[in-house]
């Protein structure tokens, strides 16, 4: 007999016991572990979804802030550009004004320098010319020239205008110490007498004349008393010549700065 009914019963019992044991030691713990893991995973997924939603919200918020920041930055940049343009224009205007002022000052300075130089040149030329003339006349001075000069002086005295004549006469009369006659050279007696006589006759006074030698008169003769004087000398001619030369060398009217700037 292939079927042993005791063994069948025992095996059935064994199988039932095995079912219970396997439930106890295998199925329940493993299924519990699977459930716990699934629950944990579900929880983590839910948490991740929540975090994802939060992150998306935060990202949207950040995007919004970024947009606002970009707009603000663009506005600030535009304002900064405008300010920079204005400042640049202002600085350019200031620099242009400063350059114009400097240019004007430079022109004024150059004109002044030119004038100074011109004046110095003219002065130097005059000085040289007249020094040469003086030297030449001094070298040429002779008795004949001196007598001629005296004659010319006397002629001048006699031809004085009435006003000058009266003023000089008053001055001579008020001079207690007498008048002074200065000459570039020592007058000979004949010329002193002639001059004395001419003075007395011209101004109607009798006074003492003191004679002094003044080489600076350049071949001239001068009568002075009490702050008034009558003189003739080649220096007068030289002075007249100098004035003429000044008039001739006077620069044309200085051009206006505005005209140059334009």
């Amino acid at each position, binding site marked *: 007999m*292939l*079927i*042993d*009914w*005791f*063994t*069948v*019963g*025992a*095996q*059935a019992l*064994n*199988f*039932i*016991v*095995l*079912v*219970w*044991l*396997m*439930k106890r*030691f*295998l*199925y329940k*713990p*493993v*299924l*519990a*572990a*699977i459930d*716990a*893991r699934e629950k*944990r995973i579900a929880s983590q997924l839910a948490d991740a979804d929540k975090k994802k939603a939060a992150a998306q919200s935060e990202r949207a918020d950040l995007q919004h802030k970024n947009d606002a920041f970009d707009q603000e930055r663009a506005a600030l940049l535009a304002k900064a550009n405008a300010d920079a343009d204005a400042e640049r224009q202002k600085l350019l205007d200031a620099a242009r004004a400063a350059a114009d002022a400097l240019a004007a000052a430079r022109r004024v300075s150059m004109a002044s320098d030119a004038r100074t130089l011109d004046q110095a040149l003219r002065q130097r030329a005059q000085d040289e010319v007249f020094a040469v003339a003086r030297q030449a006349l001094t070298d040429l001075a002779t008795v004949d020239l001196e007598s001629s000069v005296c004659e010319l002086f006397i002629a001048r005295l006699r031809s004085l205008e009435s006003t000058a004549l009266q003023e000089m006469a008053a001055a001579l009369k008020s001079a207690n110490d007498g008048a002074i006659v200065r000459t570039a050279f020592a007058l000979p007696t004949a010329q002193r007498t002639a001059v004395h006589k001419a003075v007395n006759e011209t101004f109607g006074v009798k006074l003492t004349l003191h004679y002094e030698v003044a080489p600076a008169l350049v071949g001239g003769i001068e009568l002075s008393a009490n702050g008034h004087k009558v003189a003739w000398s080649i220096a007068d001619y030289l002075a007249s010549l100098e004035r003429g030369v000044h008039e001739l060398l006077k620069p044309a009217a200085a051009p206006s700065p505005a005209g140059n700037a334009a």
Partner: protein
Amino acid sequence: MRLSPDEWIFWQHGFVKLNATIVFTWALMGVLVLGSALVTRKLSTGRTQSRWQSLLEIVLTAILQQIEEVGLAEPRRYLGFLGTLFLFVAASSLCTVIPGFESPTASLSTTVALAVSVFIAVPFFGIVVQGLGGYLKTYVQPTPVMLPFNLISEVSRTLALAVRLFGNMMSGAMIVGILLSITPFFFPVVMTMLGLLTGMVQAYIFSILAAVYIAAATRTRTPVPKPAATH
């Protein structure tokens, strides 16, 4: 040559005996329970887990999936019975590679015991799910005339289940033994491999058939709508 491990008796007192079928069943039970206890002692619910835990989870998940695919709505309710059925038969088949091991399923007594267990489990789960009345109604469906045929079907399929498992398991062991005596080197290895495969297939078929029977017993029959009357 023994046809059944029942004939290998270790101890006997009256009709109570301790044969190889029972002893090796206990050994197998010990291995299964002890292994399960060892693996489930330190179960992890975190990201990392042991390979044994992974293996057990894969096996249990596959069994649950198969039960669900058969049509049972709550697979966890049947996992204890069907899962143990599969694991016991599969382990018995796998252990045949151990020299000296006599597979319990090579005994008709064991397969009959398993078939009887299925025979009891089918109405048990049917009554649990549908109630006593609901379950008994299934025997008179679609008409009360079918009652004897349903009863015969119930008994015969249980008998067929037992004989099928026994035949397959025993034949595998017998063929290996015969080939071992004829060609001791090459064919036994091949046949053993084939026997392992056959054993696994038998374990699967046995469990699936049990699941199908339980599913048939627990399935609520929905009334067929009558066609509309035409004039």
